[in-house]
């Protein structure tokens, strides 16, 4: 009986319209443009997390849909006003799209990454940084020690003999 009832086009249209209204968002529930949605770390680590904060998330259980270009990200609630999204293991600049409560926001995200590969003098053993983590190193070349500046790309020979047949690495003092 119900099947034949819906076969009538006019009645079917009226019935489906009623369903659409029932499933639609009430006007008061749409996220207004006046409520900010912010990305806390628009420059982020690949394979890390993006953190997004808004008062719009407070007191609600639903989560926004977040895309990086065309990639849909997994979203997790962090606290009352913050959600996080899992970032892909890649780098570059991306367009961010966020959909929430019938509204859409956009921005840009940069995932830091590889900048280049160069080659420098042949070294042996472990170089010693001039300070912890410094890009300026004292390293052993094949017959002498060198001062290597990774940032500047410069190599300065030091008048200090070294051979890997004596000790593999230069020793700190």
């Amino acid at each position, binding site marked *: 009986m119900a099947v034949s009832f819906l076969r009538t086009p006019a009645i079917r249209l009226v019935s489906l319209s009623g369903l659409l209204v029932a499933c639609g968002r009430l006007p008061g529930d749409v996220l207004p443009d006046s409520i900010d949605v912010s990305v806390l770390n628009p420059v982020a680590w690949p394979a890390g997390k993006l953190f997004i*904060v808004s008062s719009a998330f407070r007191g609600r259980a639903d989560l926004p849909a977040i895309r990086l270009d065309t990639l849909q990200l997994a979203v997790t609630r962090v606290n009352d006003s913050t959600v996080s999204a899992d970032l892909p293991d890649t780098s570059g600049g991306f367009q961010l799209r966020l959909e929430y409560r*019938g*509204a859409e926001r956009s921005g840009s995200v940069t995932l830091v990454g590889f900048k280049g590969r160069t080659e420098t003098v042949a070294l*042996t053993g472990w*170089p010693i940084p001039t300070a912890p*983590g410094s890009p300026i190193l004292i390293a052993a070349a094949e017959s002498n020690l060198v001062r290597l500046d990774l940032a500047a790309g410069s190599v300065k020979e030091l008048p200090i003999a*070294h051979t890997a047949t*004596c000790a593999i690495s230069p020793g700190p003092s």
Partner: protein
Amino acid sequence: MPRAWRFSPTVLVTDSAPYLTGPADRMWAQLAPGTWLGTAHHQITIFKDGQVTLRDQLEEGERAVFSPDRSLAVVLTTIAAYHVPVLLTAPGTIAFRLPLLSAEAAAFTPDVDTLFAAGYNAFTPGVLSRLVAVDAATGAVLVQVDSLSRQLWDMVLDPDAPWLYGVEVATQPVVAVFDRHTLQSLGRIRPPATANCALLLCGQVGLAIDRVTRSAYAFDVKGWGASFDGTPTAVFRFDLVPASQAPEILSPISSSK
């Protein structure tokens, strides 16, 4: 007769004192005035004023990492059967041992309150690498993570942000980023598939950062033990996330749904 090289950027090499006659084919280091460290294939030996103060089984000790105040040192090793010792440099004795049977990466905080190290705590199949933070005064474990899928070969603390960087290697170096306080992973930076270590085999890969340009450098030293003499050292450069950044307010583009 082995010789000890003593150097700094402004001091020329001087030969070792005559008492340094033990085998040391890996490294000599001066721990403190009168205290010397020699590392050989299977052990380390410390000499204090001409006397041996310590011998410990420790394989392939090719690097020593000092605390910024030079009071402590860790000799990085592939295997330390009695767990990796942390050395008091002045007396040449052991301060404490790390909960690690190997350590290929270590870093001290600038105020020497914490020591970070990574290595294995067992050598059985399937065991993952351990990253640990210990109290540098007592050796008490502060945080420990046993889930690193790859060994870290060097590590550097960010001087401007609470991040710890480590470098993993296979055919290319990958920079892993950790929260310094929790040791949880924050992300990783990898080169494209076409940028590999020379000979498609990473050697001894070190890590450095430039705090001014916010760059990280991983460098692949291939000529250890004169095995690959003449192979250029590959240097991989990566951008780092700024130490601080302003939030970005997203722009509304539609409210029609």
